[in-house]
């Protein structure tokens, strides 16, 4: 039995503190990428809603008359037919009542 030659071997895979931090950072960044992508998808997903809303506000800006009491046809309907808001005809044709339906789901 000869003398065993023990020799200290350094771990070949060695990272410094600085390297460890940058690698962890890179992994975190790559993990976060899909989240950013999903977020932008979700944001875009509602763009058609914003586009429809913008379309109506555009219609408002384009309109010659922009207030309900300024609509000449509304005036005409009250003059020729319904008299005034909350008049007898208005109450009969433009107003309603509601019912209690809560028993239906009790």
């Amino acid at each position: 039995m000869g003398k065993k030659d023990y020799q200290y071997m350094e771990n070949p895979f060695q990272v410094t503190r600085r390297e460890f931090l940058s690698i962890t950072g890179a992994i975190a960044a790559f993990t976060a990428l899909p989240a950013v992508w999903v977020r932008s998808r979700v944001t875009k997903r509602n763009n058609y809603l914003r586009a429809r809303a913008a379309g109506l506000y555009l219609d408002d800006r384009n309109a010659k008359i922009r207030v309900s009491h300024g609509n000449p046809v509304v005036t005409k309907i009250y003059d020729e037919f319904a008299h005034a808001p909350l008049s007898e005809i208005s109450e009969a044709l433009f107003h309603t009542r509601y019912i209690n339906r809560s028993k239906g789901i009790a």
Partner: protein
Amino acid sequence: MESATKSFQKGEIPGIIAIDEATCKGCDSCKRHCPTGAITGMFGAVHRIDADRCINCGQCLVSCPFGAPFETVDAVETVLTRLNNKDVAVVGIIAPAVRVAIGEEFGLPAGTLATARMYGAMEKAGFKILDNNLAADLTIMEEGTELLHRIQGELSGGEAPEEGHGPLPQFTSCCPAWVRYVELNHPALIPHLSSAKSPQQMAGALAKTYGAQKIWGVEPGKVFTVGIMPCTAKKFEASRPEFISAYHHLAAGGGTYSGEAFPDVDAVLTTRDLARLLKKMGIDLAKEPGSAGDSVMAEYSGAGTIFGNTGGVMEAALRTVHAVITGTEMEPLEYRDVRGLKGVKSASVNLIDAKTGKALQVNVAVVHGLKENIGAIVDEVLSGRSPYHFIEVMNCPGGCINGGGQPVHPEGSGWMSAIAPLFAWR
């Protein structure tokens, strides 16, 4: 289905929305959008809709990734036969939100304003046009006057509100899903609902009385009114038995009409239904030259057209209330505090009364997306702590532009509120 009639009056259509059992994958997406918890079924199993709880908003329909929910009522064929009958005047009542969405069904980009093209296409199909924006203007006059009465009733000594004047705050009543939600879940709030009908029902009653006599010169029984709506709940609303007011008016008040009873609104087509009808008739809306409407019934104001957006009814009402109280027009007319997609928007408007010289502060709130946002507002009103005078409520997130009858977006609609908790930093 015996249970599905408990929360319905005689004549009403129960269950506008149903889920196709063969298509449903049990993914639970619809449950996250249902404002009333009407959808039952375990994850992975076929889901069902409890018609008694359902308020017909159709948010499940536009949000389902598989397209399983469908409408049980389809009036396209009925309207086609009426259009082919030359004795009948078919009147199309066009809601605000339809004009910025119908283009999507014909390949136009989302949000394209297609009012003229839609008028043209519908006239070609045989419709007479009654723009619902005109009825929206009427709604503002009626609902605004009612609001001022309620406020004056409260200011005059704080006694019990005068006969016929309900309590404050006043809720809007344009959204049929919201009205049914109140009737089902919070009947104590019914006195707070404006007694004004929704624009669709005002338009129907107007078409069969004033329109028939003064505009189109036809017998009221020969007018067939078709609501063109971004909304599935409007199909239910039109079937409510109290909405035969034009007939009652003509038979009792005017006294001359002796024909059969008829409803104010005969049929309702959603935006998708109208696109299907036009395609069946071979009409391409995108290629239409456009029209300005065939009568004065197509004349509307900018205030009427923004009814389709969340905050739009409130903004339109503020413009008129401002003019009535102060005697001058609001400057600028845009009221940005009530615009946008925030769940609950509130604002205070200070007005100087032109007659008395006193200052009046009007507090308003705007709610859309019932599921997430209505709870706190309702609790405040029920406990008498609500600081508001006027509250606008629309069931669908974003308002009617995102209604259950609108073109279904390929990536799904109505996700805004459901996704919010996941992306809190947005």
